[in-house]
Structure formats: C-alpha cells, structure tokens
C-alpha cells in the first residue's frame, strides 16, 4: 500500500466537462416517447392478461405501480433525455454526452476512430431520424448519437469518414 501523496499547496482549479454544442433533433423526443410507450405497453398488457384470471393483491399493486411508472417515463424522461443528450464533432475529436440518472460523457479523437455507422429503425425511418455510431478499436469506446435528423446525420457521417480516412495506420 502506498502512502497518500501530500496534496499540493494550492487546491487544483475546479474543472468540469462543458456541454457539447449541439442538440439532437426535437423529433427524437417523439421517437423516445413512442419507443418507451411501446415497451411499457407490452409489460402492462402482459400483467393485464394475467389479472383477467387471478387478482392477487400484490399483482394489482404491481400493475398500478407499473402504470404510474409508465406514465411518468413516457411524459417526463424523453424531455430530460433530450436536454441531456448533446454532441459535438470538431476537426480533432467527437464528443458526446448522455444519460438521465447516470451522466455519461465520451470523447474519442478522430485519429482513433475506426468505423462510422448509421442505423434507422422503423420508427426512426417514419420520423426521418438516424442514429450515428462511432466506434474505436476498443470494445468499450463506442459513441452513439441517437435521434439526429436524417440529412444532418448523412453529412456528419460523410465528414467523419473523410476525417478518419485521412489518418494513417490502423487506429489502435
């Protein structure tokens, strides 16, 4: 066990990560809302079918609790998520922030980016949204920008791909 280092005489400056400059498309709120509503609906309908046959008290309570959680989740969290989820791409690095209860910031230099992908699920296609995933050579380092406008996402992918192709080596 190493003894603690004596702390420096002056306290270090108070630092924080600044918010990335861009927000995703406002339609993303609708997308998250629909997606969450869909998964909650599966849970609630499943519980409801069981309640048709047996009505133990704990299951009724559970179903009510789930219904309240679902309403809160569908009405409130998409907005918070929209506020929290920000991104930024400079000519040096990609910087993404997300998270509702656990804040999560990720930074990857463009010189270490391996692939840039877009995904669009059925709901996203209908809303004209895209998710951009930036992967590095590490299994833990993927950055994801969810709910970008389709055309903006295409531009971003093009710019990132051009920047990563400009760097030599295998980005490890």
């Amino acid at each position: 066990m190493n003894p603690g280092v004596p702390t420096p005489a002056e306290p270090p400056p108070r630092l924080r990560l600044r918010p990335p400059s861009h927000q995703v498309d406002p339609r993303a709120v609708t997308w998250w809302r629909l997606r969450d509503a869909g998964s909650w609906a599966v849970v609630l309908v499943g519980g409801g079918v069981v309640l048709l046959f047996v009505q133990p008290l704990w299951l009724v309570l559970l179903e009510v609790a789930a219904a309240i959680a679902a309403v809160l989740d569908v009405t409130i969290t998409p907005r918070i998520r929209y506020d929290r989820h920000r991104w930024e791409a400079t000519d040096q690095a990609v910087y993404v922030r997300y998270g509702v209860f656990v804040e999560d910031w990720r930074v990857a230099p463009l010189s270490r980016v391996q692939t840039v992908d877009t995904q669009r699920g059925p709901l996203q296609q209908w809303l004209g949204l895209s998710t951009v995933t930036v992967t590095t050579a590490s299994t833990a380092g993927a950055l994801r920008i969810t709910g970008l406008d389709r055309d903006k996402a295409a531009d971003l992918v093009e710019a990132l791909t051009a920047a990563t192709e400009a760097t030599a080596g295998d980005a490890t």
Partner: protein
Amino acid sequence: MTAASSTEPKPEPAMAGEPWHRLDRRSIWVAPLTPLAGLFATGLVVLTVRGWENLGLVEPAIGAVVAIGAFGWSAWYWATTWYRVTATQVELRSGLLVRQHRSVPRDRLRSVDLTADVVHRLAGLAVVAIGTGRQGGESDDEVTLDSVATAEAERLRVVLLARDARPDTRDVTAPDALAPDAPVASPHDDAPPLAVFDASWVRLAPLSLLGLVAIGLLGAGAGQLARAVDVEVFEVGPVQAVLDWFGRTPLLVSVLGGLAVLVVLNAILSTVVYVLLYGGFTLTRAADGTLRISYGLLTRRSVSIEELRIRGVAIEEPLLLRLGGGARCKIVAAGLGTKGREGKEKQDSDLLLPAAPRAVVHRVTAAVLRSPCVPVAGPLTRHPVAALRVLARQRVATAAVPAAVLGLLAGLGLVPHWTWQVALLLLPPAVAFAVLEYRNLGHGITDRFLVVRDGSTLRRTVVLRRDGIIAWRFRRSVLQRRPRLLTTSAAVAAGKGAHTINYADQDEVLAMARDTVPGLLAPFLELDAGR
C-alpha cells in the same frame, strides 16, 4: 511432408503459387490419444472394481468402435486440412463435404501461441494458434493448426511475426535510458531472458487457491467415477471413517480440523500445480521485436507477442499473495485471446509472469514496458474520503438485501425471525470490503504511463501506455454529483477494452486526463465557477 520448407528464408517474396502444406502426419495418432487414454483408464478402473469375470464381448467391442471412430475422424481431418502462408495471408482450408476456407491477412497477426501437451511433446508436435488483433464480436479469424512438427511450429512463429523485423524503436528515448534488463537487440541471437523461473518463487505457491480448484476437480471426477461403477461414496471405508469422526467430535473441533486439513491440502496441491504449470518459465525479448513467454513442465506453452501491440501491463495481487510479498502479471495487448480447437478460450494467454516476488514483478514490468523506472513503485493519488462513503453505501445496501427480504417474509410469518437476524451478519464483511476497496483505489501518471489501481480482495494495478489510450469515458451517478466524484475510463485497443478509475476527485482526475493525452480533452473542459 510438412516441414519440407523449413530452410526457406524468413522474408519470403510474393509468389502466387505458394504450396499448400498438410498438418503433420503423426497428428492422426496424437490428437485422439489423450481423450482415448482417459476413456480406457476409466474402463480399466470400472472393470477392476466390478471384477474381470463380468467382462463380456460388448464392452471391448464398444471400445474398439470408439477408438476406430476417433482415429478415423482424426485421419479424415488430417487428409482434408491444408494450410499455407503466402506473402500477405495465412490460409487454412479443411473439409471435403463441408469446405471451410479461412484466410487472415498477415499484417493483422499479433501473437503466435504454441502448445504441446505430454503426448504431443513425445511425438515432437505442437499446436499452433495464431491470434489477430480483432476486438469484440466473434473472433472468427483465428487460425489453429492441430498439430505440426515442432520445427515447423518454430518456423511458423518466426515467419509469421517477422514481417516487421525490427524492435519497437519508436518510444525508446535512448539506448542508455533502457532498464538494465532491456538489452539492445542483436540481429542474430536472442537476448538473455528478462526473467527465468526461480526456486524461490515456489514459496509463494501455497498462497494461491489453485489447490482448492484441484481438490474440487478431483472430487468431482472421483464422484463421477464412483457413480459409474455403482459404488456408494458414503459407504467406502475411509469416507465412512471421516464421517464417523465428524459425528463423534464436537462441532467447533471438527470445523477447525476440517479447515486445517483443507489449508494444508491446498498448500500442497497448489505448490504441485504451480510447479507443473509454470515450471521452466522463461520470458525473452526476441530479436525480431517480439516477447516470448514459455512455461510448463507437462504441457509446454510458448506464446510470442508482437511488442508493438503491447499497451500495458496489469499487476494482479490477490490478498494472500500480496501479504506474502508476491504478485502476478498479465499483458494488456490486442490479439491475445487465442482459442483451442474446440473453440474454448485458452487460459492464461495473456500471462506475463506467474506468482513471483514483488521485486521480480516490478523489474519485469519495467523491462517489458522499456521504462527506466518502475511506474508502480511511486505513490499514487488517493481518492477522496467521499469515495469511501459511496462505496460503503453501495456494499451495505447490497448486503442488506437478503436481510430485508427475509425480514419481510418473517413479518408475513413465512420464515422464522432468526433468519433475517443471521442475514445481518453479512453487513460487517460488506463494510470491510468497502474499506479494502477504498484503500486500493488510486491512480497516477508518469512521463509515459497512466497507472490505475482498484479491486478489493484482488488488487489490480494497470500500467497503460499513454499513447495507447484511444478514448475517454466519464460517468457520474446522481450520488456522485454533490461530492464531486467522477468515474473515468481510459479505452485501449486491447484486453477488456477500458480501464476504469473509480470515484476519483473530479477536478483532479479531469486535469490528469487532460494532461495524459495532450490536446484531446482540453477543448471540452471549462472552469467550474461554483454552484
């Protein structure tokens, strides 16, 4: 035959018609021998117990069919498997009805792993596994040759890793800045080893739990055998005697006695297993820019890793070993997860040093990283006391779950009340673990390395090359916000992907991350005017 081309010059010119090789013909007999030997040994035991007079015609017939089948399949595999090394690719094709063709670009090869168990060694054969730096997903681009002659295996090792036949001079500042053990690579001969197995290491062996694992395996095997021969385990003489003794002696004595026997057995078996597994350990820096790690008295293992791919070293100290003044080392590098023929991940493929005295561990770490000083020897930055509070809260909350559930059930009258009271006994150890974990937290940077330390009963200290960090990740839960604790992960293209500094002081760790990889993080930081 396969080894016909062993006199080929190392850097082969590009030729389109590179000939295909077969595996060594002897592998037809060698590959099925170990499983068959186990089968026949079991058969013999069964027969001896049951009595030879019961032996009919059926059992030998089944045995013969199984043996013929195994050898037949092995011969089929040999006859239909071909491999070759071209200027750019390693290719393996096998099968006739279902054809498989796998080709791996040679510039993606990161490690070559030769394994030879006793039978293979007697026959002069080795299994060659070639690892690539592919991270994540199905590592389907690994090539395993089971098996080729030892000379051919050595030739493959040299040829496959020789593509970049110069040591990593990129980050060696000056020849005299090297550690005393890091010799200047001579063009012809391998340098003297960086570490060699020493009898004094064996004194650390009883501190591991390898023996308990061995006891478990032996017990399970014996139980299975007993079931096969219809012997009731509890009616065997010695077992019966032990059970009788347990029945007659007071509880305290029997528990203490049992523990003492386990400890002694573990110490003996651990030592035996340690010597068999790691005896003859040698770590060499070869002239072609690879590290070579070979060990094993029975199964001989020899792993070569391209030095350029090494991103760091992880020092692991299980509590007992640490108290005994020892540690073991692993390599943090891409392309080390090689797999065997049955697709199972091989153990120890990232082993750098088995349990050894701390001084040796530090010396080897410095030598492998080509660092003039030992990066872990200096003091690390401790984390704020608030981290202990967060850790303790988490551990205690987890440990309180059984008591809470049992208490609820007791309230409903489903279980007796003493159950949740007993479950409360989990709380003191939970606090102890949190304290241990907190005391192990630490991090620091040196001129070329980032050092990250964590773990409770297993303390891990990872020394990462700063230029190997390819991304940062910062996390903060709601609980961490007010005490200004930030969890920081450095992602590397190797091993498990990211190394995490848990619950560090936000201001300090952000400044450190900014300095670790210059220019990356600075644009995204701002002064926190206060809240």
